[in-house]
C-alpha cells in the first residue's frame, strides 16, 4: 500500500460525500465513496482502508434521532469490522451526522476502551431550529486527537438542528481529564463561548463542538471542516482579500485550515503504516 486510502460512506440520505472526498484528495489521500450497502453485503472490505469517514447528511431522514438508524445498521451488520478497524489503530472521523452516528454506535467517547456504550448524546439545538452559521473554534492543545495536531483555532460552518452535546457530569469530567474535548465553540477572541449564543450555536455543554476517543484516533465534530476546502468558503474572504491586497500581499492560493485537518489524519497514517 503506497496510498492512504480513505473510505467515505454514502447512501441512505448522507450528503457531504463529494466534498469530503475532495478534502481527502487535497490532503493527499485517495478517497473512495462507498455505499453503506457495499460494506454490509461485503462487496467492499473495511479492512482495506486506513481512514473511515462518517460524513454529514440526514441518514434515514434523521427521523428517529440524528444518526441513530445509521448507527444501529452499522453496528448490526459490520459492528465487528468497525471494532477491528479501531483495534488496528486506524482513523475514524465523524462530521455532523457522522459525529451523531459515532456517539450512537458508542465508538465515541470510547471511555474505558468500551466502544459500544452510548454515554453521551447530541440532541436538539437550544435555539429550537436548524441553523447554518460559521463558528469560531478553539482547539485543545492537550488533546491526543491526531486530526487537530498543531492547531489552536479554526473557523468552520455548523449546519444542524441537533448539535447540542450533553453528558452526565461524571462522563464530562472524564472527557476533560483525558483531553478528549477537542474543539470548543469560541467567541471572536478565541475564548470558549461560555454557552453564549450564537458563538455557541446549539447550547452544547462546556461549549463542546468535537470530541475524540482516549487514543485520539476516533474524532467527531459538529462543524464541517470539509466545507472550508477553499479560501472563498470563509464568510470574511472578500474582506481579508482587501486587507491583504492593501498590504501588498497576494491572496487566493492559501491552504485552508479545513484541509489541514485532513492532512493531519493522512500524515498520521503515513507515519504509522508506511
Amino acid at each position, binding site marked *: 500500500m503506497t496510498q492512504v486510502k480513505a473510505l467515505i460512506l454514502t447512501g441512505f*440520505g448522507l450528503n457531504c460525500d463529494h466534498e469530503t472526498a475532495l478534502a481527502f484528495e487535497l490532503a493527499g489521500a485517495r478517497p473512495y465513496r462507498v455505499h453503506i450497502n457495499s460494506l454490509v453485503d461485503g462487496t467492499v472490505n473495511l479492512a482495506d482502508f486506513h481512514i473511515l469517514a462518517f460524513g454529514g447528511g440526514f441518514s434515514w431522514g434523521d427521523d428517529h434521532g440524528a444518526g441513530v438508524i445509521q448507527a444501529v445498521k452499522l453496528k448490526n451488520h459490520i459492528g465487528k469490522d468497525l471494532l477491528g478497524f479501531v483495534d488496528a489503530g486506524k482513523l475514524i472521523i465523524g462530521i455532523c451526522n457522522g459525529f451523531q452516528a459515532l456517539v450512537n454506535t458508542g465508538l465515541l467517547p470510547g471511555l474505558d476502551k468500551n466502544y459500544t456504550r452510548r*454515554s453521551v448524546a447530541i440532541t436538539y439545538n437550544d435555539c429550537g431550529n436548524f441553523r447554518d452559521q460559521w463558528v469560531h473554534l478553539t482547539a485543545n492543545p492537550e488533546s491526543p486527537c491526531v486530526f487537530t495536531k498543531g492547531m489552536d483555532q479554526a473557523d468552520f460552518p455548523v449546519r444542524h438542528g441537533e448539535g447540542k452535546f450533553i453528558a452526565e457530569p461524571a462522563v464530562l469530567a472524564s472527557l476533560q481529564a483525558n483531553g478528549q474535548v477537542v474543539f470548543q465553540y469560541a467567541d471572536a477572541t478565541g475564548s470558549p463561548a461560555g454557552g453564549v449564543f450564537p458563538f455557541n450555536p446549539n447550547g452544547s455543554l462546556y461549549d463542546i463542538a468535537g470530541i475524540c476517543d482516549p487514543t485520539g484516533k476516533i474524532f467527531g465534530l459538529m462543524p464541517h471542516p470539509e466545507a472550508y476546502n477553499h479560501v472563498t468558503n470563509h464568510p470574511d474572504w472578500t474582506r481579508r482579500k482587501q486587507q491583504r491586497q492593501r498590504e501588498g500581499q497576494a491572496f487566493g492560493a492559501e491552504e485552508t485550515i479545513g484541509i489541514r485537518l485532513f492532512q493531519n489524519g493522512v500524515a498520521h497514517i503515513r507515519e504509522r503504516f508506511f
Partner: protein
Amino acid sequence: MTACIEIALKQSLGDAEASSLVKKADSYFKIHIESARTIHMLTIDSELKTQDLERIRQEIFTNPVTQVSSLSPLEIDFHWCIWIGLRPGVKDNPGATAMEAVEDLLGRSFGPDEGIYTSKRYCLSGESLTRSQMETLAKALLSNPIIQQFKIFSKSDWHPETGANVKPARVILDHTPCFDFIDIDSDQTLAKISDQRNLALNPRDIPVIRQYFLDPEVAAQRQAMGLSGPTDVELEYISQARSDHCNHNTFRGIFNYTDGMTGEKTIEHSLFKTYIQQPTLALKQKKDWVVSVLWDNAGVGAFDEHNNYAITGETHNSPSNMEAYGGAITGIVGVYRDPMGTGLGSKLFMGSFGFCVGDVNYDGPLKPPLHPRRLLNGVIEGVRDGGNKSGVPTTFGQTLFDPGYMGKSLVFVTALGIMPKQVKGSPSHEKKTSPGDLIIMSGGRVGKDGIHGVTASSESYSENTPAGHVQIGDPYTQKKMHDFLLECRDEGLIRFITDNGGGGLSSSIGESAMISNGCVVYLDKVPLKYPGLDMWEIWVSESQERMTIAIDPNDLDRFMSLSRQHAVESTVIGEYTDTGKLHITFQGKTCAYVDMDLLDKGFPAWEFDAVWLPPAARGLTEPVIRKPEDFNGLMTAMLARPNICSKEWILRQYDHEVQGGSVIKPLVGVNRNIPSDGSVTRPVLTGNKGLAFSQTLLPWYSKIDAYHMMTCTVDEAVRRLIAVGGSMDHIGGVDNFCWPDIGYDKKTNPDGRFKAAQLVRACRALKDACMAYEIPLLSGKDSMYVDGHLEGAFGERIKVSALETVQFSATSVVKDILHCQTLAPKSAGDFVYVAGITADELGASEYYDLFGKTGANVPQVNFAANKVLYRAVEKAVRLEMPASCHAVGRGGLGIHLALMTMAGRLGMEIDLSQVPAAAETFSDDVLLFSESAGRLLLTVPPDRKPVFDKLAKGLAFKCVGGVTDAHDHLKVTGVRNDMIVDLSCADLDKAFNKLFGEMI
C-alpha cells in the same frame, strides 16, 4: 396485534418542541400553559414478539442518554393531553424509516397489512386550561384537518393502560379496481360528467373530444381492442394533458388586446411563442453557451469546458395555501426532480426560495385557510426540510408581504443541477425514447395522493377545492433515488428520463411516448401503497418522488442491481413502441387505446379579452407629500418595514454551504446578517469558476403598470448579478409568472380584462428586457389563478387577488471566483460612488407605501444606458477596482446605504447633492427613496480611484462621499447642505431587527 412505543425526553432535559408550544399558545392565543411535554408515539401494526418489541424499543427508538420510553403509556402528568396523528393515506416519512430500521434489525420484512405509524401527544399542565382552549390549540396550531386528526383527553378521560388508544392509520379501500366507459351522447352529458368527476375539461375541448371518439375509424380500431366509448382513463389523460398547468393554455392562448384610450386593437396569437420562444431561440443562435432550451424539464447552459448546468423554477401555491408545510416540502422536492430529469440527468447543486404572504400580524375579519403567520412558518419549514434533507444548498431566498397574498400565498422554488457535457461519448442534454425501450418507474409508490392536483391548481381556491391533492414530500426517498440515477447515468444506462410531477404517469409517459410514437403500459405492474386504486387513479396519481426512465432491455439487470444497492424501488411498467398508440392495459385487459397525436386534433386555443387603461386614465396621480423634517425617524421607520427589515432567521434555517462550494453567501457583512445581492457557488470544486445567481420580485409596480414591473424586475436581477461578479456576456433567465384570474366574467371576475392586459404588457416587457440584455429564457413557468375567496365577518366571501407577480431568476458564470464581491464596505478612506441616474420615480415605492399611497411615477428602465453602465461595473469588478459593490433596489439609496453601513460596520458620509439625478430640483426624500432602476453603489480605495474614474468617464458615475472609521454612522447631507440623516450602526441595527429580531 397493535403495539405502541411512547418516547419522551428525560424530564431533566429541555423539551424545545414543548417550550415552543407554550410560547406560541401564549403569544398567539393568550392561552397560558404552565408546563408541557411532548411524547412521540410509534404505533406498530405487526405481529412482533414481545422480546422483539423490547429490542427495537431499546436499540432503535430510545437514546439511553436523553430519552425514556415504554411499551405502555408513559406516566407523565397533565391536566390536558392532545394527541395528533396523520390521517390514513397521508405520507408518514418517519413511519417509513422506522419500518426500514425495524426490518433491518430484525431481519424480516413487513407484509402489505403491516406498518408503523408515528404520532405525538402533548401533556399540558395548567389549572385554568379549558377544553375549548385545547380545541383552539389542536385546530389552529398543532394540526391541520386536511392531513391530521386529533383527540383531546382531560385527566378524567385518560386510562393509564389504553392511553391515547391509537389505531393504525392504515388505508383500507375495500374496492375492486375497475375502469368505466363514459357516456358522450351529447356535449352536455360530457360537460356534466366532467363536472361530476372533477375532470375540469374545458367546454371548448368537449366537441373535439367527442368528435374523436365518434370517428368511425377510431371506433373500429378501439372495438378491436374491446373498447366502445371513451374510458375514464382516457378522459383523465386528455384532461391532464389539456390542463392549464401542463399545456399552458393561457400563454398559448389568443388575446384580443385593446388600448382603452386609443381604441387600438392588437391580436396576440401566443404570448409564449411571441415573447418567450422567439427571443430565446434568436438569442440561442447568438450565444454559444446556450445548450438546450424550451423543451426539457429544465434549461441547460454551458458552465465550463466539461460541464453544463440546468435550471428551472416552479411554484407550489395552491397546496401550500391549504397545508403549508406539506405543500412547500412537496414543492421543493418536486422542483428538484426537474434537473434530475433534464437531459440524461443532472446532479443538484443549489436551490432557492421566494415566499409571498399576507401580513403575519393580520387580525382583521377575513379568514384565509391558514393565517399568514402560520402559513409562513409552515412554508419556511417545508422548504427547509426538503432542501436540507436533499443535501442541496439553498443559497438565496426572499420573503415578501402584501395583503393580496392572503388570497393566495406564493411559494417559489428554484433548482439548479450540474452535468458532464458528455456521457459515454454522447451529449448529455440529448435523450430519446425508442421502440423496444423499457419503461421503468423508480422511487416512491403510487397512492391516492395528489389525484387531480394539476386540475386543482388550474382553478381558483374555493371552499369546494378538493383537499386530497395535498401531499408531504419525502426528500429521503428522493435523495436515495438521486444518487442511484446519477450512477446509472454515468454507466450509460439511461436513454430517457423525466420526472413524475403534475399529471403523474399520464404526463411523464404520455409526453415521452410522443418521441418513440407509442407505448404500452401495464398498469397492474405499478407498485401501489395500498390496493384498491382504480386504473385512472394509478394513471394520474401525483404521488411524489418518482421518475420515469427508458432503458435498453439489455441493461435491465445492471439497472436493477444498482437500484437494489441504493435501496430504491424500480419496476418495469411497460414498453415504448412506434405503433402511434397510447395503449394501457390492466391484467391483460385494455383500458385505454388512443392515438398519440390525439392532442394535435384541433383542440381550440383559449381566448381572452384584454383591455388596457394607462395609470392616468385609472385616476392614479402622485400624492402630495411635503419634505419630511425628521429623516432619522423616517429612515428607521423604513428600515423596520416588513419588506425591508432583516429576515435572517429564515435564511439561517437553510443549509447554504453543503457540497462545499459556497463563495458568496446569502448573508454577508462583518456580522453576516445583511442579505446579499446574489449568491455565487462552485458546482465544480476542482475549478475556479462560479455560478452567480440572483432573483428579484417587485410585484408592487404592477399596481401602476405590469410592463414596468417586468422590466424593473429583470433589470434588478441583472444588476444583482453584476454586483457579485457576474458578466453581461452570459445571463440566463427564468421567468415564474403568478397571475390572478384573467378570464373576464361580469360577476365573478369583472376586472379580468384589465388583468389580461397586464399579462400581455408584462410579456411584452419580458421580451424587451431579454432582447436588450441578451437573456435567453432557459426555463419558465406560469401559475394562474392566484386569487382566494375568503370568508369575512358575516359569512360573506370576498375575493382577494394577489398582485400580478413575476419572480425573475438570473444566472451568470464567473470566470474566476476570486474576483467576486460583496456589498460590505471594507476599509476606511474608500470613496463611495453612485452609478446610474436617480429620477423622480417613487410610484409604488416603499416610501409611498409607508404613507398608504401608490402614486403614478413607476420606475422605467433605460436599457441602452444601463447596459453600458453595467458593462463598466462588470469590468471594474473583474479588474478588482471596487472594494464593495451593491445593487440599489427596494427602498432606494437611503435604505441601501444603510444596509452597506450595517454590513461594513464603518461610517459612511454621503452628500446627496452629488447624486447623479435626472433633475437638479429633487428634494431629499426623492433622492433617498426613489426606486429608479439601473443604479449601483460602490466603494473604491483611494489608490484605485484614478483608474476607476478613467473607466467611469462619461458615464453616470459620481463620487458622493466616503467611508470612515472615525465613527460608525451613516451621515447624509441633504441638497441644502444640512445634515439630514445621522444614525449609528446600533440605531440602524435596532430598526432593521425590530420586527423579526427575536426570531431564531
